[in-house]
């Protein structure tokens, strides 16, 4: 029965002090003369001098101080401070850009210090949100000020930011890639949802199908994605060479066709498993009561079993979609397009900011989809969120 007010909040204390050490000890930004040469790193003190660096320590120390006797008021104050500091990170980048980027070709890179600070601040936000028991929408609303600040800084001062330059030089291509990515994920998840529900229903009716189906799907899931993409290459190439209408459709060994096939294959297991388990796990007492009241089989399924199973099925869709977003990135290797293209192009050219341009949106997409579908599941669960 440890009480929150009893001692210092060790988590808050540790995280803020570690973040302070990283902030002072690691490079916050790097500046390169152009895209090719490696950049030089700058620590906080090298950007604004020792006294300026000491000023930037104040909020971190204040956070650690608030952790000492954590009343709910102080924790709320700490959360406000964290949001403020998140919003200040883009401002810091702008300041560095104005101070350090002297030529038009100069490119500003984000240093390890900022990444670590960003990561730890987000952790602090999660921790404080949990301690203060804030609802999900408020948690998301807290991200608005930092996002607004980042947008503003990008528009006004952050022209030299390398990541931003990579984006602007291929903004059309970027939006196209996001579209392709979402289309592939959407089609794969949609197809596997339909197939998955049909398969799950068949499994409930015929136990033989259940054993064989799960056997095959489990087996498929163990094969690494890159291998599966590769293994589909040969048969599809052969098919497109020998079946004219498939070739006319654009099916070939590389491109969207093997990607989609593999994505559907991977998506089926979580989909089928969740749908099956969801339908099976409905309290037998409830089904018994429904039958006893004289509901027909169809009525029981539509009015009782399906609504009760829906949250778990949605959970399956969430897992599948998040997984598909990641796998689609790999599919770029076999020419399926999408955000993965930037990652592999960037890796090929050793252009790290291009890699970031691919990887960051994938991360954000995965988190967004996870949050949205999670919220939807909560809404659809009878009686609201748990």
């Amino acid at each position, binding site marked *: 029965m440890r009480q929150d007010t009893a001692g210092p909040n060790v988590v808050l204390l540790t995280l803020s002090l570690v973040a302070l050490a990283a902030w002072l000890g690691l490079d916050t930004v790097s500046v390169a003369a152009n895209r090719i040469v490696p950049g030089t790193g700058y620590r906080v003190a090298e950007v604004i001098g020792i006294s300026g660096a000491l000023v930037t320590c104040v909020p971190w120390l204040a956070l650690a101080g608030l952790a000492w006797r954590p009343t709910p008021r102080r924790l709320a104050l700490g959360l406000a401070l964290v949001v403020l500091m998140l919003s200040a990170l883009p401002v810091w980048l702008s300041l560095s850009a104005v101070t350090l980027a002297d030529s038009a070709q100069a490119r500003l890179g984000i240093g390890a210090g900022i990444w670590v600070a960003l990561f730890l601040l987000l*952790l602090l936000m999660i921790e404080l949100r949990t301690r203060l028991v804030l609802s999900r929408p408020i948690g998301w609303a807290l991200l608005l000020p930092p996002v607004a600040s980042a947008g503003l800084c990008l528009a006004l001062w952050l022209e030299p930011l390398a990541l931003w330059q990579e984006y602007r030089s291929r903004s059309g291509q970027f939006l196209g890639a996001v579209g392709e990515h979402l289309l592939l994920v959407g089609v794969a998840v949609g197809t596997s949802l339909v197939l998955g529900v049909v398969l799950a229903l068949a499994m409930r009716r015929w136990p033989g199908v259940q054993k064989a189906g799960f056997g095959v799907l489990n087996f498929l899931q163990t094969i690494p994605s890159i291998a599966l993409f*590769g*293994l589909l290459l040969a048969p599809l190439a052969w098919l497109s060479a020998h079946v004219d209408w498939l070739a006319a459709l654009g099916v070939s060994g590389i491109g969207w066709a093997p990607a989609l096939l593999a994505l559907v294959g991977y998506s089926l297991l979580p989909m089928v498993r969740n749908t099956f388990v969801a339908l099976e796990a409905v309290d037998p007492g409830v089904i018994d009561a429904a039958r006893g009241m004289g509901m027909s089989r169809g009525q029981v399924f539509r009015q009782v079993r399906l609504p009760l199973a829906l949250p778990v099925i949605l959970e399956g869709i969430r897992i599948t979609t998040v997984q598909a977003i990641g796998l689609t*990135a790999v599919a770029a290797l076999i020419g399926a397009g999408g955000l993965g293209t930037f990652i592999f192009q960037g*890796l090929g050219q050793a252009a790290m900011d291009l890699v970031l341009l691919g990887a960051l949106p*994938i991360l954000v997409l995965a988190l967004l989809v996870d949050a949205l579908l999670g919220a939807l599941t909560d809404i659809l669960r009878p009686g609201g969120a748990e």
Partner: protein
Amino acid sequence: MTELRRWVVPLCWLALLLAATLGMGQLEGLFRWIEADSRQVIYERADFLTLLGRHLLVVSVAAVLAILVGVGAAIAATRGWGRDFLPLVSQLASIGQTFPPVAVLALAVPVLGFGTLPIIVALFLYGLLPIVRNTLAGLEGIDPGVMEAARGMGMSGGQILRQVELPLAAPVILAGIRTSVTINIATAAIGATVGASNLGDPIISGIVNGNTAYVVQGALLIGLLAISVDSLFSRLPLAGSR
């Protein structure tokens, strides 16, 4: 006898993997049929045994680190003195699951550079999550009555951990390790694009050069490796029992 029979299936997969690794050259005829246009149909920049060895090395170093740190962190977060960290650690483990492995790998490169080290770090970090999550679930899932009895009988904290908590949580922890290793075998292959040389190499080089035979060779070996390891895990005494 049954003890031996249990290992037949994984051993068969392992044998198949070894045979494919060593005997890939013998299948030249088959690959020539797949890739009739190319002059060379067997990947020869490095021999397959070396690639397999490097792949295994990277994955196992990352796995050992992830097991030590992950299980350790979860144990620490469930002790009296580490309880403060429990909500954060468990939230982090579940949020981290949504990070796609490719994105994690890609993000490791700008920070750590090209080569084997960033791969190991990325695999280690990503592999931590399922292990932490499952260890927490395993430890938290123990019947409170059992814990109460263990304390009431006068077992010390260490005795309870070693004799009660870890054995009871072992199946769940092991399932986490299995997930972690399976994902990492796949992710390591993608590591070939950031300069680590392993079984992903033939695939990447095949895609780049438009040589399907290379791709199939790499894919076949990675597939066999993943299946062998998964099959080994499923036969471990604790994983399937009860």
